[in-house]
C-alpha cells in the first residue's frame, strides 16, 4: 500500500487534543494549537465546525462550501457529499464498487472521504460536559 503524505501527516497530528489536554492539566490553561489556531479547550469542548475544518485541511479531496450542498462536506469539484460516498461503500461493500456507483470519482477520492470521516470521528466530543454528564 502506498502511504500518502496526508496519512503520514495525520498520524503526527492525530492526538492533538489529548496532548494539549495533558499539557494543560485539569485547569485547562494549555497553549493554543499554533498550526491550526485552535482556541483554548474550555471545558474540553471543541466546536464541531472546527472539527470539520481541521478534517478538511487534512484531506486532499474534501471541500466545505456553504453555497454548495448547504455546507455539507463534499468531494472537491463535484456535488457529491462525503456521506453519500460512505453510503456507497456501505451498500456495495468495497471502494472499487463505490467508484462504480459514482463513476466520476477515483478510488483515491473515495479513500480520502474515508480519511475525512476518520478525522472527524477522532475528535474530542467525548470530553464535552454535555456528553460526559449523560
Amino acid at each position, binding site marked *: 500500500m502506498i502511504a500518502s503524505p496526508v496519512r503520514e501527516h495525520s498520524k503526527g497530528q492525530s492526538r492533538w487534543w489529548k496532548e494539549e489536554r495533558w499539557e494543560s492539566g485539569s485547569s485547562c490553561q494549555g497553549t493554543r494549537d499554533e498550526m491550526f489556531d485552535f482556541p483554548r479547550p474550555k471545558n474540553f469542548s471543541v466546536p464541531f465546525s472546527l472539527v470539520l475544518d481541521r478534517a478538511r485541511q487534512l484531506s486532499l479531496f474534501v471541500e466545505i462550501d456553504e453555497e454548495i450542498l448547504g*455546507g455539507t462536506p463534499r468531494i472537491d469539484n463535484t456535488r457529491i457529499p462525503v456521506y453519500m460516498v460512505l453510503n456507497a461503500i456501505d451498500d456495495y461493500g468495497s471502494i472499487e464498487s463505490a467508484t462504480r456507483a459514482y463513476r466520476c470519482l477515483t478510488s483515491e477520492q473515495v479513500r480520502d472521504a474515508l480519511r475525512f470521516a476518520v478525522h472527524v470521528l477522532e475528535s474530542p466530543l467525548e470530553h464535552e460536559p454535555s456528553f460526559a454528564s449523560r
Partner: protein
Amino acid sequence: MSWSRPLNTNLRLLLDEDVQDPIADEICNISAFNVECVRDLPAIQGKSDREVMAYANSKNRIVLTIDGGYTKARYPICTHPGIIRIDSKCKHSAVVCDVIRRFSLSGYRIKAQHAITHLTRDEALIEGPDCRVLKCSI
C-alpha cells in the same frame, strides 16, 4: 398551448450530481420522466445550489436530489418548478430506484410540480403550493 398539454403528467427532471449513477441510469429508463443529469452538464457540475436551481428554473425542470439543503426556507414553494428529495434512510440504489419507480406509477407524481416532495420508503410527503402537506403512500 396545445390542447393535449394538461393531460401530460410526465415530469421533467434535473438529477443532481449526488444521485448515484446506477440510480440515474434507472430513472432515465422510466418513461414517465424526461431526464437531464447535472453530471452531464459541465456548466453546472460542482457548482453552487443556486446555480443548479437557476438552471432548473430556466429549463423548467424539477430538481431530484438526495441533499437536504433544498428546504422550503431557502427555496419557497412556487418560486421554482419543484424539488424532489429522496429521504429514505436506506440509500441503496435498489431501494431508491424502487421508491422512485413506485412514485412514478402513483397518481401523485403530478403534484410534485411547484412543490417540495420528500420520498421515503413507503410514502411521499408533498408540500404543495396551497400550503398544505399531502401525505400519501406509494
